């Protein structure tokens, strides 16, 4: 019964998220936007890479960077998207208080709103990868991809990112609209320390140690191994794939539990301080 009710809330909040993401323009323009946005964002990185390497757009390092950047879209979009729901519903639509006092589980509501982001980001990632394969000659062979590894690591990574989004949602309950910068800061930390663009082996020792505590590092490592079969990062390539998945699983579970508790604490203090329906007009 509780599962059925939870699924219903998940379905409806996902539907709401989809309406918010897609309903602002006509379907044709939305399709064009969805296609152009990831390619434009990718080209920005590609152009920077070309400038730095003086014209090279091939090689293992380029592929490493390209895939890292493509999958990082999930971190930026989902993490930011889930927590932004709190600000958007509270300050812009002024509906958060009505969702909050309903019997709907707020975690499931946030997850549902995040589902749309996951779906749209998946479309963006696929477009980016297809663009990379056909335009930039990224060496991806669909026959040699380790699909079970890709599937397991993908699910774990998404769970971890959603968990982080929920944690930031809890923090957002306590902050005004400009608290959204916290989300950008957290996403930036992952961008820098998780081997998105460059291998973490190039980081100073203390940074590398920090990177090895972050589940996103193992997520991207597993994704790269699943797609290319190899990885160039000397800081992680000696770890057996089974260990990478084990570390990712354990860290994801720990991060998720931590995230739920952070949200719970944020929720308690927001209710104590009367911030659930705060409007700041910032």
């Amino acid at each position: 019964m509780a599962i059925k009710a939870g699924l219903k809330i998940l379905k409806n909040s996902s539907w709401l998220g989809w309406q918010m993401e897609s309903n602002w323009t006509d379907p044709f323009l939305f399709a064009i936007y969805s296609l152009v946005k990831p390619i434009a964002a990718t080209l920005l990185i590609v152009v920077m890479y070309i400038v730095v390497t003086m014209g090279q757009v091939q090689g293992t390092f380029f592929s490493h960077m390209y895939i890292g950047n493509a999958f990082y879209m999930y971190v930026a979009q989902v993490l930011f998207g889930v927590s932004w729901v709190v600000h958007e519903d509270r300050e812009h639509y002024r509906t958060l208080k009505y969702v909050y006092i309903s019997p709907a589980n707020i975690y499931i509501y946030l997850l549902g709103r995040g589902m749309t982001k996951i779906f749209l980001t998946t479309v963006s990632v696929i477009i980016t990868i297809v663009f990379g394969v056909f335009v930039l000659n990224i060496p991806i062979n669909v026959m040699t991809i380790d699909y079970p590894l890709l599937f397991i690591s993908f699910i774990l990574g998404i769970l971890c990112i959603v968990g982080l989004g929920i944690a930031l949602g809890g923090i957002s309950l306590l902050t005004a609209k400009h608290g959204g910068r916290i989300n950008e800061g957290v996403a930036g930390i992952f961008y820098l320390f998780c081997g998105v663009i460059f291998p973490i082996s190039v980081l100073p020792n203390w940074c590398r140690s920090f990177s090895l505590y972050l589940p996103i590092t193992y997520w991207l490592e597993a994704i790269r191994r699943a797609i290319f079969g190899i990885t160039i990062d000397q800081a992680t390539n000696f770890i057996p794939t089974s260990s990478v998945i084990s570390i990712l699983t354990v860290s994801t579970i720990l991060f998720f539990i931590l995230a739920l508790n952070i949200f719970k604490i944020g929720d308690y203090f927001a209710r104590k301080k009367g911030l659930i329906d705060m409007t700041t007009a910032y």
Partner: protein
Amino acid sequence: MAYAIETQELTRLFKTKSKKGKKEIVKALDHANLKINEGELFGLLGPNGAGKTTLIKILSTLLLPTSGDAWVNGHSVKNEAHKIRKEINMVSGGETSGYGLLTVRENIWMFSQFYGIPSKIAKRRIDELLVTMDLSDKANAKVRTLSTGERQKMNLVRGFVTDPTTIFLDEPTLGLDVNVSRQIRSFIRSWVREQSNKTVLLTTHYMMEADELCDRVAIIDYGKILACDTPNNLKRTVGKDSTIRLEVSHMSQPKRFAQMQGIKNFSYSHDNERTTTTLNFIIEDEAVVSDIMSEIVKNSSKIYSLRKTEPTLEDVFVSLVGRGLK
């Protein structure tokens, strides 16, 4: 006997900063004790900042009390919020909440789903309520295109579509025109009368609204519950006294009347458009009327009208706190 709503020594403090930057403690609710029966349409009457909204926020589980406790349908707001949420809903007036990109019907339907109402039942209820609220023609309009009154009606439908056992209406007619307000009051009255187990807690600073709608009214000011009874009983408390209402040309210092002998209570309001001042007196002995008239004449003000009125809830408020509701 279990009450639909009960508060016990309910207190809520807020930390604020004064203009000089000093930290201040504001008592929004001060040891409030209330007992509201099931099936009652209960009004909370008080001026802005009296603590009405704070009380509703606590009862609807949006805010925790600083001390004391409150129960809604027997569940504590402190640690049984999840049980309360299944049985309540809330509508706040004077706000523009709603997802602007969705239609009216979609907005209401989505909230009904958060309460687990089967979709078919929800759709039927939405249709019925939209007709009742005279909003059917806007059912498929995007929320962003609605006027303030239409949004308020939509929010009322959102509140009632879940068929809550207890509903909190925080100033539901705030800022609405006379017709829409009348329509909303009529709906609230019939909703609670038609179902014996439904409870409404309504806050308002319109004394006429409280008088017309409510079975019982509590008068609240500075977080304290000053009186609680039926509107008629409350009015009877000032019934032995006479209430005199005078409309005069604009007076710059009407406060001086409060010092006159024989005046039990006094309030006034200015109408800047008409450049008039309305003076309300509660007097024990009508002989004092001639003194009041003399004072007005001495002040070179013109008297436009003089009425002896029946006591209103505002008079009750004035007699309790010594100033008007506005």
